[in-house]
């Protein structure tokens, strides 16, 4: 049973029923879910959550879809790991990694898509659709398979192999569009207007986006119902960034955090800031597509769209839907935003792999490099509790790091082996 009152426009406050809508008819502003927090606070407790499934659906009271029979391939409840080695190399003693690269379809998108798919089934759609540069396509195809409905995924023709196969394997209708990024965007907006499909990030968007709140809930629960001093988050549309913040604030307002008194949500639930939520929110984007970072750095009141040109394709959103709201969160939390030089992205991937044994994709490389910048600049102090969100898996963007393959090639003889191994050891190599 979902505790949803309806939808509300983030710009003008007009209310709408909880249907398959995403834009306000009057001002074209985005719609957001409104909850019945009074009832939620009567039923929710740490104990109730801890008895729930080991997936995002343990937080079903705070999700906008019916959790009794969700489309669940076990998204979420991913490991939170104390990063001793990475921490040591960065001079941070209290660093944790939220490893969301181990979700069922290998990215955090499973969280948002599980909610969108559940909602699509509730609304009786027979097709789940998206336009994606990879992770979203994989997740939509996987969840549609689980739900037993059709998937239609649009991808740009030049996508990495790991992402194409990672989506195609679930049997969706895959449309590979020969065109620029802008053209794919335009085509898909038009398709969404003309086909009665559940487009996860278009007509399902208000519900879909809420799935990312679970990245906030889980970290708090895994830290023993505490929230970090700092979080570092990769951003594309900016939605996840705003939702993690919302998740922390909801927990605080509901009195679920250690030593924090419950408080009311106020009239605009989506901008509520509980004074006990002192987490500094740090955003990471790649230099080749950093519209939110640029707007933040220049103190602009709005985000100017850019044409993406980055190896971090999963972060390549030139016209971010939630950019302006992400900037509000940056301001409210006293956070920061950093554009990672393109050349540092791969270094970030390698640093994480070599210190912690976690292989992330380019988006994770961006995040680790941003973390390094925050540590080097002293923005994060050595003992502050810091969580870095690793949201996608390295197997999907193998092309970015092909140069790591440098084996000792030998004939099958002991002599040949001893020759090369002694040389390698002599130069201190691995």
């Amino acid at each position, binding site marked *: 049973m979902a505790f949803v009152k309806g939808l509300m426009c983030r710009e003008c406050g007009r209310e709408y029923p909880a249907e398959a809508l995403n834009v306000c008819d009057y001002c074209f502003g985005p719609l957001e879910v409104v909850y019945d927090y009074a009832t939620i606070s009567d039923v929710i407790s740490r104990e109730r959550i801890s008895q729930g499934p080991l997936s995002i659906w343990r937080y079903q009271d705070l999700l906008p879809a019916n959790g009794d029979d969700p489309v669940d391939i076990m998204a979420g409840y991913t490991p939170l790991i104390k990063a001793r080695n990475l921490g040591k190399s960065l001079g941070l003693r209290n660093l944790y990694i939220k490893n969301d690269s181990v979700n069922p379809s290998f990215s955090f998108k499973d969280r948002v898509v599980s909610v969108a798919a559940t909602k699509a089934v509730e609304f009786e759609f027979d097709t789940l659709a998206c*336009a994606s*540069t990879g*992770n979203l396509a994989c997740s939509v195809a996987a969840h549609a398979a689980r739900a037993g409905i059709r998937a239609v995924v649009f991808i*740009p023709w030049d996508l990495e192999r790991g992402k194409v196969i990672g989506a195609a394997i679930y049997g969706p209708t895959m449309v590979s569009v020969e065109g620029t990024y802008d053209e794919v965007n335009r085509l898909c907006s038009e398709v969404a207007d003309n086909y009665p499909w559940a487009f996860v990030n*278009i007509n399902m968007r208000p519900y879909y986006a809420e799935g990312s709140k679970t990245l906030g809930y889980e970290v708090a629960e895994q830290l023993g119902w505490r929230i970090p001093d700092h979080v570092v988050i990769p951003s594309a549309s900016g939605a996840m960034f705003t939702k993690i913040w919302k998740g922390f604030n909801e927990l605080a307002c509901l009195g679920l955090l250690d030593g924090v008194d419950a408080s009311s949500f106020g009239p605009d639930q989506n901008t509520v800031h509980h004074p006990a939520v002192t987490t500094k929110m740090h955003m990471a984007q790649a230099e080749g597509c950093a519209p939110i970072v640029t707007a933040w750095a220049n103190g602009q009141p*709005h985000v100017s769209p850019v044409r993406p040109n980055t190896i971090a394709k999963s972060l390549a959103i030139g*016209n971010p839907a939630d950019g302006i709201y992400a900037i509000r969160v940056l301001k409210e939390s006293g956070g920061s935003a950093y554009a990672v030089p393109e050349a540092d992205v791969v270094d970030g991937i390698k640093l994480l792999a070599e210190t912690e044994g976690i292989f992330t994709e380019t988006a994770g490389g961006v995040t680790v490099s941003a973390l390094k910048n925050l540590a080097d600049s002293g923005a994060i102090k050595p003992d502050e509790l810091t969580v870095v969100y690793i949201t996608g898996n390295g197997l999907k963007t193998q092309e970015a790091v092909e140069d790591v393959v440098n084996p000792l090639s030998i004939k099958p003889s002991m002599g040949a082996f001893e020759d090369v191994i002694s040389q390698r050891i002599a130069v201190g190599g691995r």
Partner: protein
Amino acid sequence: MMGTQRVKFTFMTQLVKEPIIYQLGQNFNLVTNIRRADVREDMGWVVLELDGDETEIQRGLDWVSAIGVRVDPVSGDVIEG
């Protein structure tokens, strides 16, 4: 065929002073309906709806892009990571 389209225009410096939306209405016979806007000295954006013949809407948007205005869907990019 008649149609409507919701778009966001973003424009820089010198274009702020141009009567772009007026010309769009006049030259392409479109009804322009502004829903939200923020226009400053050095840049601005306008969220609006265009009503008219579909080919004229397309021609109008092509003209707007050609003079240097950025045209986007109103609710951000739909293609995602």
